[in-house]
């Protein structure tokens, strides 16, 4: 009988202990690593005042279509380079955070060229319709997608009047650390939030200045002394689809 009784096997117990430890490590390690990567990055390259986004600011851009050259695409290139938005040579499904559009007035024939991107509405329809709250607006007016809770339902794309959003149709490689993206989620212009938080201007505005056009002015709409506020006070400007009453953060001149 006694030969049938299983003896205590120290090796078995040791194995179980190690296996549990290993499993726990495997489960927790990636989280710890991501956490440390995220924080290391913020600490190293971005200066943050520790306050986070504040409603004292409302970030916006004023785009002067009169200064925008039809044959210039520098803002688009700069944006997509800055944020790692690549192409798979499939124009129907490739994402575009910003695009140049050319207009021709049906009555007068006047042509206009201008970039269109997320207009960072004060009351964004994308935020209204998002079932999980992944589409959100920061206190400083920047409209973003939380990639962690976006389920990829694309309702925001149906609701956006500006066609500003793209769905990621395939696996993404070579992402930028400051612009996380993922297959199956929706994304759009972040108004270079990583730069703004570091006190810098947007990539598109910077590229436009570098090209000598100075058609894009970035700044704080809530600061009466900012360049953008001064210009908006001085000159007539317009919102795309102003009829919807969305109070966009991106304004235009010459449209």
């Amino acid at each position: 009988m006694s030969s049938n009784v299983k003896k205590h096997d120290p090796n078995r117990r040791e194995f179980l202990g190690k296996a549990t430890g290993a499993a726990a490590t495997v489960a927790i390690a990636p989280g710890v690593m991501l956490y440390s990567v995220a924080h290391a990055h913020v600490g190293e390259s971005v200066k943050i005042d520790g306050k986070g986004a504040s409603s004292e600011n409302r970030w916006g851009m004023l785009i002067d279509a009169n200064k925008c050259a039809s044959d210039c695409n520098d803002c688009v290139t700069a944006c997509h380079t800055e944020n790692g938005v690549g192409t798979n040579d499939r124009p129907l499904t490739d994402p575009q955070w910003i695009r140049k559009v050319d207009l021709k007035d049906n009555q007068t024939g006047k042509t206009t060229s201008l970039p269109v991107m997320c207009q960072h509405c004060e009351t964004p329809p994308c935020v209204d319709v998002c079932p999980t709250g992944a589409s959100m607006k920061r206190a400083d007016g920047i409209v973003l997608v939380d990639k962690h809770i976006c389920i990829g339902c694309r309702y925001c794309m149906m609701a956006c009047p500006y066609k500003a959003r793209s769905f990621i149709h395939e696996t993404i490689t070579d992402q930028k650390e400051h612009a996380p993206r993922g297959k199956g989620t929706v994304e759009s212009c972040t108004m270079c939030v990583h730069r703004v938080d570091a006190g810098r201007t947007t990539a598109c505005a910077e590229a436009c200045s570098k090209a000598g056009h100075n058609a894009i002015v970035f700044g704080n709409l809530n600061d009466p002394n900012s360049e953008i506020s001064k210009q908006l006070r001085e000159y007539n400007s317009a919102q795309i689809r102003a009829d919807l009453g969305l109070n966009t953060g991106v304004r235009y001149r010459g449209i």
Partner: protein
Amino acid sequence: MKHVTYTSIEGDSLGYWALLAIFGAIMGLAGIAFYMMEHHGHYISGMNNQIVWGTPHVFAVFLIVAASGALNVASIASVFGKPMYKPLSRLSALLALTLLAGGLAVLVLDLGRPDRLIVAMTNYNFKSIFAWNIILYNGFFVIVAIYLWTMMERRMNKHSHKAGVSAFIWRLILTTGTGSIFGFLVARQGYDAAIMAPMFIIMSFSYGLAIFMLVLMAAYGWTGRQLGDAVFHRLKNLLGVFVAAVLYFLLAYHLTNLYATEHHGVEAFILMNGGIYTQIFWLGAVVIGGLIPLAIFYSPMGKNRTLVALGAILVVLGGLALMYTIIIGGQAYPLILFPGKEITSSFYDGVINSYTPSIYEIGLGIGGIALALAAVTFAIKIMPFLPASLADSDVDPHHKTA
């Protein structure tokens, strides 16, 4: 009226298992389609950044709408007190549950991140009509399940009226929610119309009843049970009323849009020069899904059950066609960012957007139908959903034996 006896079907014939096997095979193919789209990404589907909701949504919304409509037969019995419909109530509620399950399965499996379903269940933005719908769908499952319980458990029978009224109210809210997904999209020319909510309700009456009749005829025909003319003709005439009502709502919807000059572009697109969308609208939704079934139901052809079944099938096909023109046609027409101006860009601004359904999307959509029907087929074998007989002498209080 005699006491109704409900029995489960035997379900041991070769035909029964073959039917389940066919549904299983279709669901298997749908599973492969789902895997392909999730693994490779949606670029292998016909959808793109312009047409963001494609064929899976056509099937999903159709099934969800039909689900609430399938419950109608039960509602007529317990809410409006028509005794002839009472024996059909169990099947009606069952079909409502399975159609909704099929539709939601398609909807969820088409998400960019279906693995995050738990996120959708735990993070709610209460301003989102989608979020309301998630609550409405889950609530529908619970309420209809309770309603079924009150009908099938003798001790609970006394509560079935209350449960039936609750389920009826809930289903009206649910379809209002489904229609509002589109009706509240202010930015899109093709939607942005509050009439879409009641229009979806009347569409649900029609599609739900058409599917109900087809399932009823198949179940009774294949199991050799009697389905009398009294029940059958009443259902057929009711379906005719619903089909006509859908046509009326379509007319009102398009006339309303036509009155506003700013909507002339999108109306001309759907009704006149939209190519495939115009054809699907007139030929599919109006003629095949509306006029031909009406002609069958309200003429001497309505006495022929095969033709009536054909009419019900046409109502279903017409419903899918209408969903296609609403969902995909509505997106194909470009967003108008600059009224009065011609617009061109590398992002397909100002052009009619192209869309070709892929085999994966069609497979996933049909998989949802197979799931719903397989669940019904299985359920009526394991539980007594069907009356042993729906012969005139059993259900019609005014029936006179010849």
